[in-house]
Protein backbone atom coordinates (compact mmCIF):
# COMPACT_ATOMS: atom_id res chain seq x y z
CA UNK A 1 0.00 0.00 0.00
CA UNK A 2 2.82 2.41 0.84
CA UNK A 3 4.33 1.78 -2.58
CA UNK A 4 1.05 2.71 -4.22
CA UNK A 5 0.71 5.84 -2.11
CA UNK A 6 4.27 6.85 -2.89
CA UNK A 7 3.63 6.35 -6.59
CA UNK A 8 0.49 8.47 -6.47
CA UNK A 9 2.29 11.28 -4.70
CA UNK A 10 5.24 11.23 -7.08
CA UNK A 11 3.06 11.13 -10.18
CA UNK A 12 0.71 13.89 -9.06
CA UNK A 13 2.97 16.09 -7.00
CA UNK A 14 2.30 19.22 -9.00
CA UNK A 15 -1.47 18.89 -8.70
CA UNK A 16 -1.22 18.17 -4.99
CA UNK A 17 1.08 21.09 -4.27
CA UNK A 18 -0.92 23.68 -6.18
CA UNK A 19 -3.73 23.87 -3.58
CA UNK A 20 -1.07 24.00 -0.88
CA UNK A 21 0.47 27.01 -2.62
CA UNK A 22 -2.93 28.65 -2.75
CA UNK A 23 -3.50 28.03 0.94
CA UNK A 24 -0.07 29.50 1.65
CA UNK A 25 -1.20 32.67 -0.11
CA UNK A 26 -4.36 32.60 1.97
CA UNK A 27 -2.30 32.34 5.13
CA UNK A 28 -0.17 35.24 3.97
CA UNK A 29 -3.26 37.37 3.38
CA UNK A 30 -4.62 36.56 6.83
CA UNK A 31 -1.35 37.37 8.59
CA UNK A 32 -0.94 40.59 6.65
CA UNK A 33 -4.47 41.70 7.50
CA UNK A 34 -4.01 40.86 11.16
CA UNK A 35 -0.85 42.89 11.53
CA UNK A 36 -1.80 45.81 9.32
CA UNK A 37 -5.20 46.38 10.95
CA UNK A 38 -8.94 46.41 10.51
CA UNK A 39 -8.77 48.58 7.39
CA UNK A 40 -7.69 45.62 5.31
CA UNK A 41 -9.97 43.09 7.00
CA UNK A 42 -12.59 43.10 4.26
CA UNK A 43 -10.13 42.89 1.35
CA UNK A 44 -8.36 40.09 3.21
CA UNK A 45 -11.62 38.20 3.69
CA UNK A 46 -12.47 38.61 0.02
CA UNK A 47 -8.99 37.53 -0.99
CA UNK A 48 -9.15 34.49 1.28
CA UNK A 49 -12.54 33.51 -0.08
CA UNK A 50 -11.33 33.68 -3.65
CA UNK A 51 -8.26 31.66 -2.77
CA UNK A 52 -10.43 29.11 -1.03
CA UNK A 53 -12.54 28.74 -4.16
CA UNK A 54 -9.36 28.41 -6.21
CA UNK A 55 -8.18 25.62 -3.97
CA UNK A 56 -11.47 23.78 -4.52
CA UNK A 57 -10.81 23.91 -8.23
CA UNK A 58 -7.30 22.65 -7.52
CA UNK A 59 -8.61 19.65 -5.58
CA UNK A 60 -10.93 18.79 -8.40
CA UNK A 61 -8.09 18.99 -10.89
CA UNK A 62 -6.03 16.69 -8.68
CA UNK A 63 -8.74 14.03 -8.72
CA UNK A 64 -9.28 14.38 -12.44
CA UNK A 65 -5.54 14.24 -13.14
CA UNK A 66 -5.17 11.06 -11.11
CA UNK A 67 -7.88 9.22 -12.99
CA UNK A 68 -7.35 10.67 -16.44
CA UNK A 69 -3.62 10.18 -16.16
CA UNK A 70 -4.17 6.57 -15.13
CA UNK A 71 -6.32 5.95 -18.16
CA UNK A 72 -4.10 7.82 -20.59
CA UNK A 73 -0.86 6.21 -19.39
CA UNK A 74 -2.44 2.80 -18.74
CA UNK A 75 -1.17 2.63 -15.21
CA UNK A 76 -3.93 0.47 -13.73
CA UNK A 77 -3.58 -2.23 -16.41
CA UNK A 78 0.01 -2.65 -15.29
CA UNK A 79 -0.69 -2.40 -11.58
CA UNK A 80 -3.61 -4.81 -11.80
CA UNK A 81 -1.29 -7.53 -12.97
CA UNK A 82 0.95 -7.11 -9.93
CA UNK A 83 0.18 -8.16 -6.37
CA UNK A 84 -2.50 -5.50 -5.85
CA UNK A 85 -6.22 -5.28 -6.36
CA UNK A 86 -8.18 -2.45 -7.93
CA UNK A 87 -9.60 -1.66 -4.50
CA UNK A 88 -6.13 -0.94 -3.18
CA UNK A 89 -5.20 1.15 -6.19
CA UNK A 90 -8.26 3.30 -5.69
CA UNK A 91 -7.85 3.41 -1.91
CA UNK A 92 -4.28 4.67 -2.27
CA UNK A 93 -5.45 7.26 -4.75
CA UNK A 94 -8.18 8.54 -2.45
CA UNK A 95 -5.88 8.59 0.57
CA UNK A 96 -3.46 10.81 -1.31
CA UNK A 97 -6.28 13.11 -2.30
CA UNK A 98 -7.54 13.44 1.25
CA UNK A 99 -4.00 14.05 2.40
CA UNK A 100 -3.68 16.89 -0.10
CA UNK A 101 -6.97 18.40 1.09
CA UNK A 102 -5.87 18.26 4.70
CA UNK A 103 -2.40 19.59 3.91
CA UNK A 104 -3.96 22.57 2.20
CA UNK A 105 -6.64 23.32 4.81
CA UNK A 106 -5.20 22.43 8.22
CA UNK A 107 -2.46 25.09 8.09
CA UNK A 108 -5.09 27.69 7.25
CA UNK A 109 -7.14 26.60 10.25
CA UNK A 110 -4.11 26.61 12.52
CA UNK A 111 -3.21 30.10 11.35
CA UNK A 112 -6.77 31.33 11.88
CA UNK A 113 -6.85 29.93 15.41
CA UNK A 114 -3.47 31.44 16.30
CA UNK A 115 -4.35 34.84 14.88
CA UNK A 116 -7.70 34.85 16.66
CA UNK A 117 -6.01 34.07 19.94
CA UNK A 118 -3.51 36.83 19.34
CA UNK A 119 -5.77 39.59 18.09
CA UNK A 120 -9.43 38.93 18.71
CA UNK A 121 -11.46 39.26 21.90
CA UNK A 122 -11.95 35.91 23.64
CA UNK A 123 -15.47 35.26 22.37
CA UNK A 124 -16.96 31.84 22.00
CA UNK A 125 -18.53 32.57 18.63
CA UNK A 126 -15.15 32.74 16.95
CA UNK A 127 -14.26 29.22 17.92
CA UNK A 128 -17.56 27.81 16.80
CA UNK A 129 -17.55 29.69 13.52
CA UNK A 130 -13.96 28.79 12.74
CA UNK A 131 -14.62 25.09 13.42
CA UNK A 132 -17.79 25.10 11.35
CA UNK A 133 -16.22 26.93 8.44
CA UNK A 134 -13.10 24.79 8.56
CA UNK A 135 -14.97 21.49 8.63
CA UNK A 136 -17.25 22.63 5.84
CA UNK A 137 -14.26 23.73 3.78
CA UNK A 138 -12.52 20.38 4.31
CA UNK A 139 -15.63 18.46 3.32
CA UNK A 140 -16.22 20.71 0.33
CA UNK A 141 -12.61 20.26 -0.74
CA UNK A 142 -13.03 16.50 -0.44
CA UNK A 143 -16.27 16.67 -2.40
CA UNK A 144 -14.58 18.66 -5.17
CA UNK A 145 -11.72 16.17 -5.23
CA UNK A 146 -14.22 13.29 -5.41
CA UNK A 147 -15.96 14.93 -8.35
CA UNK A 148 -12.62 15.12 -10.10
CA UNK A 149 -12.14 11.39 -9.49
CA UNK A 150 -15.58 10.59 -10.83
CA UNK A 151 -15.34 12.70 -13.95
CA UNK A 152 -11.67 11.90 -14.60
CA UNK A 153 -12.25 8.29 -15.56
CA UNK A 154 -12.84 9.13 -19.19
CA UNK A 155 -10.96 9.42 -22.43
CA UNK A 156 -13.06 12.34 -23.58
CA UNK A 157 -11.22 15.56 -22.83
CA UNK A 158 -14.22 17.77 -23.54
CA UNK A 159 -16.35 15.91 -20.97
CA UNK A 160 -13.42 15.99 -18.56
CA UNK A 161 -13.22 19.77 -18.64
CA UNK A 162 -16.86 20.74 -19.11
CA UNK A 163 -18.29 18.03 -16.92
CA UNK A 164 -15.84 18.78 -14.16
CA UNK A 165 -16.61 22.47 -14.36
CA UNK A 166 -20.37 21.95 -14.32
CA UNK A 167 -20.43 19.46 -11.45
CA UNK A 168 -17.89 21.49 -9.51
CA UNK A 169 -19.99 24.64 -9.84
CA UNK A 170 -23.10 22.84 -8.62
CA UNK A 171 -21.21 21.28 -5.74
CA UNK A 172 -19.52 24.47 -4.54
CA UNK A 173 -22.79 26.37 -4.85
CA UNK A 174 -24.13 24.14 -2.07
CA UNK A 175 -22.21 26.38 0.30
CA UNK A 176 -24.17 29.34 -1.00
CA UNK A 177 -27.44 27.43 -0.63
CA UNK A 178 -26.87 26.07 2.84
CA UNK A 179 -24.07 28.17 4.30
CA UNK A 180 -21.81 26.42 6.76
CA UNK A 181 -22.72 24.32 9.73
CA UNK A 182 -24.04 20.83 10.55
CA UNK A 183 -26.67 20.68 7.83
CA UNK A 184 -24.33 21.25 4.93
CA UNK A 185 -21.68 19.06 6.56
CA UNK A 186 -24.09 16.14 6.70
CA UNK A 187 -25.15 16.75 3.13
CA UNK A 188 -21.54 16.81 1.98
CA UNK A 189 -20.69 13.64 3.90
CA UNK A 190 -23.53 11.79 2.22
CA UNK A 191 -22.57 13.24 -1.16
CA UNK A 192 -18.92 12.28 -0.77
CA UNK A 193 -19.83 8.74 0.23
CA UNK A 194 -22.10 8.45 -2.80
CA UNK A 195 -19.50 9.81 -5.21
CA UNK A 196 -16.90 7.43 -3.85
CA UNK A 197 -19.35 4.56 -4.20
CA UNK A 198 -20.03 5.42 -7.81
CA UNK A 199 -16.35 5.92 -8.58
CA UNK A 200 -15.44 2.65 -6.91
CA UNK A 201 -18.02 0.80 -8.98
CA UNK A 202 -16.91 2.44 -12.23
CA UNK A 203 -13.25 1.76 -11.59
CA UNK A 204 -13.58 -1.83 -10.41
CA UNK A 205 -15.92 -2.89 -13.18
CA UNK A 206 -14.27 -1.09 -16.07
CA UNK A 207 -12.18 -2.79 -18.70
CA UNK A 208 -8.54 -1.90 -18.25
Amino acid at each position, binding site marked *: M*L*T*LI*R*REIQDNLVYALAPCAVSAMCIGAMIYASFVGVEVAMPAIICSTLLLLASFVGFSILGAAQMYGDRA*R*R*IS*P*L*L*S*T*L*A*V*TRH*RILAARVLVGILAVLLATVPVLATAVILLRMFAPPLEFYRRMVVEIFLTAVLMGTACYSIGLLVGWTTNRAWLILGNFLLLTLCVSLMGVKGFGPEVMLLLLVFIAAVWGRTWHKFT*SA*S*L
Partner: protein
Amino acid sequence: MNDSPIVVENLVKYYEGRCVLDGISLAVPRGCIYGLLGRNGSGKTTMIRILLGLEPPTRGRTVVLGQDSMRLSAQTHGRVGYVAEGHYLIQSYKVRRLVGLCKGLSLRWNEEFFGHLMEAFRLPMDRKVKDLSAGMRAQLNLALAMAIDPELLILDDPTLGLDTVARRQFLELAIDVIQRQGRTILFSSHILADVERIADRIGVLVAGKLVVDCTLEELKSRIKKLRVIFPERAPEDLYLTEIVNQQKQGREMVLTVANWNPQKQAILETFRPESCTELPMSLEDIFIECTRPASAVVPQEMVG
Protein backbone atom coordinates in the same frame (compact mmCIF):
# COMPACT_ATOMS: atom_id res chain seq x y z
CA MET B 1 -10.32 -30.72 -6.28
CA ASN B 2 -9.43 -29.21 -9.60
CA ASP B 3 -5.71 -28.82 -9.74
CA SER B 4 -5.63 -26.85 -12.94
CA PRO B 5 -4.24 -23.33 -12.47
CA ILE B 6 -6.44 -22.14 -15.30
CA VAL B 7 -10.04 -23.23 -15.83
CA VAL B 8 -12.34 -21.67 -18.39
CA GLU B 9 -16.04 -22.58 -18.31
CA ASN B 10 -18.29 -21.76 -21.21
CA LEU B 11 -16.72 -18.36 -21.76
CA VAL B 12 -18.57 -15.97 -24.02
CA LYS B 13 -17.45 -12.48 -24.91
CA TYR B 14 -19.19 -9.88 -27.02
CA TYR B 15 -17.77 -6.57 -28.09
CA GLU B 16 -20.35 -4.04 -29.27
CA GLY B 17 -22.69 -6.78 -30.43
CA ARG B 18 -19.96 -8.80 -32.13
CA CYS B 19 -19.20 -12.23 -30.74
CA VAL B 20 -15.52 -12.93 -30.18
CA LEU B 21 -15.62 -15.98 -27.94
CA ASP B 22 -18.53 -18.35 -28.18
CA GLY B 23 -18.56 -20.82 -25.32
CA ILE B 24 -14.88 -21.62 -24.71
CA SER B 25 -14.11 -24.30 -22.15
CA LEU B 26 -10.65 -25.54 -21.27
CA ALA B 27 -8.42 -26.44 -18.36
CA VAL B 28 -4.66 -25.97 -18.34
CA PRO B 29 -3.05 -28.67 -16.21
CA ARG B 30 -0.42 -27.77 -13.68
CA GLY B 31 3.12 -27.90 -15.01
CA CYS B 32 1.98 -27.63 -18.58
CA ILE B 33 3.15 -25.27 -21.29
CA TYR B 34 -0.03 -24.43 -23.12
CA GLY B 35 0.26 -22.79 -26.50
CA LEU B 36 -2.86 -20.83 -27.43
CA LEU B 37 -3.08 -20.23 -31.15
CA GLY B 38 -5.40 -18.42 -33.47
CA ARG B 39 -5.45 -15.88 -36.22
CA ASN B 40 -5.57 -12.17 -35.61
CA GLY B 41 -8.83 -11.23 -33.97
CA SER B 42 -9.69 -14.77 -32.93
CA GLY B 43 -9.91 -13.83 -29.26
CA LYS B 44 -6.63 -14.99 -27.76
CA THR B 45 -5.77 -11.69 -26.13
CA THR B 46 -9.37 -11.26 -25.07
CA MET B 47 -9.35 -14.58 -23.30
CA ILE B 48 -6.07 -13.81 -21.58
CA ARG B 49 -7.32 -10.43 -20.43
CA ILE B 50 -10.46 -12.05 -19.06
CA LEU B 51 -8.31 -14.58 -17.22
CA LEU B 52 -6.41 -11.78 -15.53
CA GLY B 53 -9.52 -9.82 -14.61
CA LEU B 54 -8.71 -6.94 -16.92
CA GLU B 55 -11.90 -7.51 -18.86
CA PRO B 56 -15.25 -8.83 -17.64
CA PRO B 57 -16.71 -11.82 -19.49
CA THR B 58 -20.12 -11.47 -21.08
CA ARG B 59 -21.10 -14.94 -19.92
CA GLY B 60 -19.30 -17.86 -18.32
CA ARG B 61 -16.45 -17.74 -15.89
CA THR B 62 -12.74 -18.18 -15.65
CA VAL B 63 -10.79 -19.42 -12.66
CA VAL B 64 -7.12 -18.70 -12.06
CA LEU B 65 -5.25 -20.47 -9.26
CA GLY B 66 -8.57 -21.41 -7.71
CA GLN B 67 -10.12 -17.92 -7.74
CA ASP B 68 -12.66 -16.31 -10.00
CA SER B 69 -10.86 -13.97 -12.33
CA MET B 70 -13.09 -11.03 -11.45
CA ARG B 71 -12.27 -11.46 -7.77
CA LEU B 72 -8.59 -12.22 -7.80
CA SER B 73 -6.91 -11.36 -4.54
CA ALA B 74 -3.63 -9.48 -4.33
CA GLN B 75 -1.95 -12.71 -3.28
CA THR B 76 -3.13 -14.49 -6.39
CA HIS B 77 -2.09 -11.62 -8.61
CA GLY B 78 1.33 -11.86 -7.04
CA ARG B 79 1.64 -15.49 -8.09
CA VAL B 80 0.96 -14.75 -11.74
CA GLY B 81 3.48 -13.26 -14.13
CA TYR B 82 2.08 -11.54 -17.18
CA VAL B 83 3.63 -10.29 -20.36
CA ALA B 84 1.06 -8.36 -22.31
CA GLU B 85 0.76 -7.90 -26.01
CA GLY B 86 2.05 -4.38 -26.59
CA HIS B 87 3.84 -4.49 -23.25
CA TYR B 88 1.89 -2.51 -20.67
CA LEU B 89 4.58 -0.45 -19.12
CA ILE B 90 4.38 3.08 -17.82
CA GLN B 91 6.11 4.88 -20.64
CA SER B 92 6.99 8.02 -18.73
CA TYR B 93 8.89 6.19 -16.00
CA LYS B 94 12.55 5.46 -16.06
CA VAL B 95 13.43 1.77 -16.04
CA ARG B 96 14.84 2.04 -12.55
CA ARG B 97 11.66 3.58 -11.19
CA LEU B 98 9.49 1.02 -12.91
CA VAL B 99 11.58 -1.79 -11.51
CA GLY B 100 11.31 -0.25 -8.06
CA LEU B 101 7.53 -0.05 -8.40
CA CYS B 102 7.18 -3.67 -9.50
CA LYS B 103 9.55 -4.77 -6.79
CA GLY B 104 7.62 -2.87 -4.14
CA LEU B 105 4.35 -4.42 -5.26
CA SER B 106 5.51 -8.02 -5.57
CA LEU B 107 5.14 -10.81 -3.04
CA ARG B 108 8.44 -12.37 -3.98
CA TRP B 109 11.28 -10.76 -5.85
CA ASN B 110 14.25 -12.70 -7.05
CA GLU B 111 16.87 -9.96 -7.18
CA GLU B 112 19.63 -12.24 -8.33
CA PHE B 113 17.61 -13.69 -11.16
CA PHE B 114 16.39 -10.29 -12.19
CA GLY B 115 19.90 -8.91 -12.21
CA HIS B 116 21.01 -11.80 -14.32
CA LEU B 117 18.23 -11.12 -16.80
CA MET B 118 18.93 -7.41 -16.98
CA GLU B 119 22.54 -8.18 -17.65
CA ALA B 120 21.70 -10.72 -20.27
CA PHE B 121 19.31 -8.33 -21.99
CA ARG B 122 21.63 -5.35 -21.45
CA LEU B 123 18.87 -3.00 -20.48
CA PRO B 124 19.80 0.54 -19.34
CA MET B 125 18.32 1.45 -15.97
CA ASP B 126 18.42 5.20 -16.40
CA ARG B 127 16.54 5.47 -19.64
CA LYS B 128 12.82 6.17 -19.89
CA VAL B 129 10.69 3.28 -20.99
CA LYS B 130 9.35 5.21 -23.96
CA ASP B 131 12.90 5.68 -25.19
CA LEU B 132 13.53 1.94 -25.31
CA SER B 133 13.12 0.06 -28.55
CA ALA B 134 10.18 -2.31 -28.92
CA GLY B 135 12.41 -5.29 -28.39
CA MET B 136 13.97 -3.85 -25.26
CA ARG B 137 10.54 -3.13 -23.87
CA ALA B 138 9.60 -6.73 -24.51
CA GLN B 139 12.69 -7.90 -22.70
CA LEU B 140 12.02 -5.61 -19.78
CA ASN B 141 8.46 -6.82 -19.58
CA LEU B 142 9.65 -10.39 -19.60
CA ALA B 143 12.26 -9.76 -16.94
CA LEU B 144 9.72 -8.10 -14.67
CA ALA B 145 7.32 -11.01 -15.14
CA MET B 146 10.00 -13.59 -14.39
CA ALA B 147 11.56 -11.83 -11.45
CA ILE B 148 8.54 -12.38 -9.22
CA ASP B 149 9.12 -16.13 -9.45
CA PRO B 150 5.61 -16.78 -10.69
CA GLU B 151 3.66 -19.96 -10.23
CA LEU B 152 1.74 -19.22 -13.39
CA LEU B 153 3.14 -17.34 -16.33
CA ILE B 154 0.82 -15.89 -18.92
CA LEU B 155 2.49 -14.58 -22.04
CA ASP B 156 0.65 -12.87 -24.82
CA ASP B 157 2.89 -12.89 -27.87
CA PRO B 158 5.99 -12.40 -25.68
CA THR B 159 8.54 -12.63 -28.45
CA LEU B 160 6.96 -9.90 -30.54
CA GLY B 161 9.73 -7.49 -31.31
CA LEU B 162 12.53 -9.75 -30.09
CA ASP B 163 15.44 -10.51 -32.33
CA THR B 164 16.52 -14.09 -32.98
CA VAL B 165 19.00 -14.22 -30.14
CA ALA B 166 16.56 -12.70 -27.67
CA ARG B 167 13.88 -15.11 -28.78
CA ARG B 168 16.17 -18.03 -28.14
CA GLN B 169 17.03 -16.64 -24.75
CA PHE B 170 13.36 -16.37 -23.95
CA LEU B 171 12.71 -19.95 -24.94
CA GLU B 172 15.49 -21.12 -22.73
CA LEU B 173 14.13 -19.06 -19.90
CA ALA B 174 10.72 -20.59 -20.40
CA ILE B 175 12.15 -24.05 -20.24
CA ASP B 176 14.08 -23.08 -17.15
CA VAL B 177 10.91 -21.85 -15.51
CA ILE B 178 8.96 -24.95 -16.41
CA GLN B 179 11.60 -27.20 -15.02
CA ARG B 180 10.77 -25.84 -11.57
CA GLN B 181 8.14 -28.01 -10.03
CA GLY B 182 4.55 -26.95 -10.50
CA ARG B 183 5.12 -23.98 -12.80
CA THR B 184 2.64 -23.50 -15.58
CA ILE B 185 2.84 -21.39 -18.69
CA LEU B 186 0.07 -20.21 -20.95
CA PHE B 187 1.29 -18.36 -23.95
CA SER B 188 0.10 -17.28 -27.31
CA SER B 189 2.34 -16.62 -30.22
CA HIS B 190 2.36 -16.29 -33.99
CA ILE B 191 5.82 -17.86 -34.25
CA LEU B 192 4.71 -21.47 -34.38
CA ALA B 193 8.22 -22.80 -34.57
CA ASP B 194 8.74 -21.55 -31.02
CA VAL B 195 5.43 -23.01 -29.91
CA GLU B 196 6.29 -26.34 -31.43
CA ARG B 197 9.59 -26.29 -29.63
CA ILE B 198 8.31 -25.88 -26.13
CA ALA B 199 4.55 -26.38 -25.86
CA ASP B 200 3.09 -29.54 -24.36
CA ARG B 201 -0.47 -28.77 -25.19
CA ILE B 202 -2.06 -26.76 -27.96
CA GLY B 203 -5.30 -24.86 -28.19
CA VAL B 204 -6.56 -23.29 -31.42
CA LEU B 205 -9.32 -20.71 -31.58
CA VAL B 206 -11.40 -20.52 -34.75
CA ALA B 207 -14.63 -18.57 -35.18
CA GLY B 208 -15.06 -18.15 -31.45
CA LYS B 209 -14.70 -21.82 -30.70
CA LEU B 210 -11.84 -23.88 -29.31
CA VAL B 211 -11.47 -26.40 -32.11
CA VAL B 212 -8.24 -27.93 -30.85
CA ASP B 213 -7.32 -28.69 -27.25
CA CYS B 214 -4.90 -31.57 -26.95
CA THR B 215 -1.22 -32.43 -26.72
CA LEU B 216 1.03 -31.65 -29.63
CA GLU B 217 1.66 -35.30 -30.36
CA GLU B 218 -2.00 -36.08 -30.27
CA LEU B 219 -2.72 -33.22 -32.62
CA LYS B 220 -0.18 -34.47 -35.12
CA SER B 221 -1.53 -37.95 -34.94
CA ARG B 222 -5.18 -37.00 -35.24
CA ILE B 223 -4.98 -34.58 -38.10
CA LYS B 224 -3.87 -36.21 -41.30
CA LYS B 225 -3.13 -34.70 -44.65
CA LEU B 226 -3.58 -37.19 -47.43
CA ARG B 227 -2.85 -37.03 -51.11
CA VAL B 228 -5.25 -39.30 -52.87
CA ILE B 229 -5.19 -40.14 -56.56
CA PHE B 230 -8.28 -41.66 -58.11
CA PRO B 231 -8.43 -43.68 -61.33
CA GLU B 232 -10.82 -41.23 -62.88
CA ARG B 233 -12.02 -37.87 -61.73
CA ALA B 234 -11.96 -37.30 -57.99
CA PRO B 235 -15.46 -37.87 -56.57
CA GLU B 236 -17.59 -34.85 -55.67
CA ASP B 237 -18.48 -36.13 -52.26
CA LEU B 238 -16.45 -38.53 -50.21
CA TYR B 239 -19.04 -38.94 -47.43
CA LEU B 240 -16.27 -38.39 -44.96
CA THR B 241 -16.87 -36.44 -41.73
CA GLU B 242 -14.53 -33.95 -40.10
CA ILE B 243 -12.86 -32.84 -43.28
CA VAL B 244 -10.69 -29.90 -42.35
CA ASN B 245 -9.75 -29.00 -45.88
CA GLN B 246 -10.10 -30.45 -49.32
CA GLN B 247 -8.58 -29.54 -52.66
CA LYS B 248 -9.29 -31.29 -55.94
CA GLN B 249 -7.61 -31.12 -59.28
CA GLY B 250 -8.53 -33.71 -61.83
CA ARG B 251 -7.83 -37.13 -60.41
CA GLU B 252 -5.90 -35.76 -57.44
CA MET B 253 -7.36 -34.77 -54.17
CA VAL B 254 -5.49 -33.37 -51.19
CA LEU B 255 -7.52 -34.00 -48.10
CA THR B 256 -6.96 -32.88 -44.53
CA VAL B 257 -9.06 -34.83 -42.06
CA ALA B 258 -9.42 -34.56 -38.32
CA ASN B 259 -9.62 -37.59 -36.05
CA TRP B 260 -8.49 -39.99 -38.70
CA ASN B 261 -9.59 -43.54 -37.82
CA PRO B 262 -10.12 -46.95 -39.49
CA GLN B 263 -13.74 -46.15 -40.24
CA LYS B 264 -12.76 -43.17 -42.28
CA GLN B 265 -10.06 -45.28 -43.92
CA ALA B 266 -12.65 -47.83 -44.88
CA ILE B 267 -14.95 -45.17 -46.33
CA LEU B 268 -12.14 -43.79 -48.44
CA GLU B 269 -11.29 -47.20 -49.74
CA THR B 270 -14.79 -47.68 -51.07
CA PHE B 271 -13.90 -45.08 -53.68
CA ARG B 272 -11.02 -47.31 -54.79
CA PRO B 273 -8.22 -44.71 -54.89
CA GLU B 274 -5.19 -45.50 -56.91
CA SER B 275 -2.90 -44.22 -54.17
CA CYS B 276 -3.16 -42.57 -50.79
CA THR B 277 -0.09 -40.91 -49.38
CA GLU B 278 0.17 -39.17 -46.02
CA LEU B 279 1.89 -35.81 -46.22
CA PRO B 280 3.85 -34.86 -43.13
CA MET B 281 2.69 -31.69 -41.40
CA SER B 282 4.41 -29.38 -38.99
CA LEU B 283 2.45 -27.46 -36.42
CA GLU B 284 2.45 -24.51 -38.77
CA ASP B 285 0.99 -26.62 -41.54
CA ILE B 286 -1.70 -27.94 -39.21
CA PHE B 287 -2.50 -24.45 -38.02
CA ILE B 288 -2.84 -23.12 -41.55
CA GLU B 289 -5.11 -26.00 -42.47
CA CYS B 290 -7.23 -25.54 -39.36
CA THR B 291 -7.69 -21.83 -39.73
CA ARG B 292 -8.15 -21.66 -43.47
CA PRO B 293 -11.72 -20.53 -44.31
CA ALA B 294 -13.70 -23.70 -44.94
CA SER B 295 -14.34 -24.37 -48.61
CA ALA B 296 -16.10 -27.69 -48.18
CA VAL B 297 -17.35 -28.31 -44.68
CA VAL B 298 -19.69 -31.16 -43.72
CA PRO B 299 -22.84 -29.78 -42.02
CA GLN B 300 -22.64 -29.92 -38.26
CA GLU B 301 -25.45 -32.44 -37.85
CA MET B 302 -23.28 -35.04 -39.51
CA VAL B 303 -20.60 -34.79 -36.80
CA GLY B 304 -20.53 -38.00 -34.83
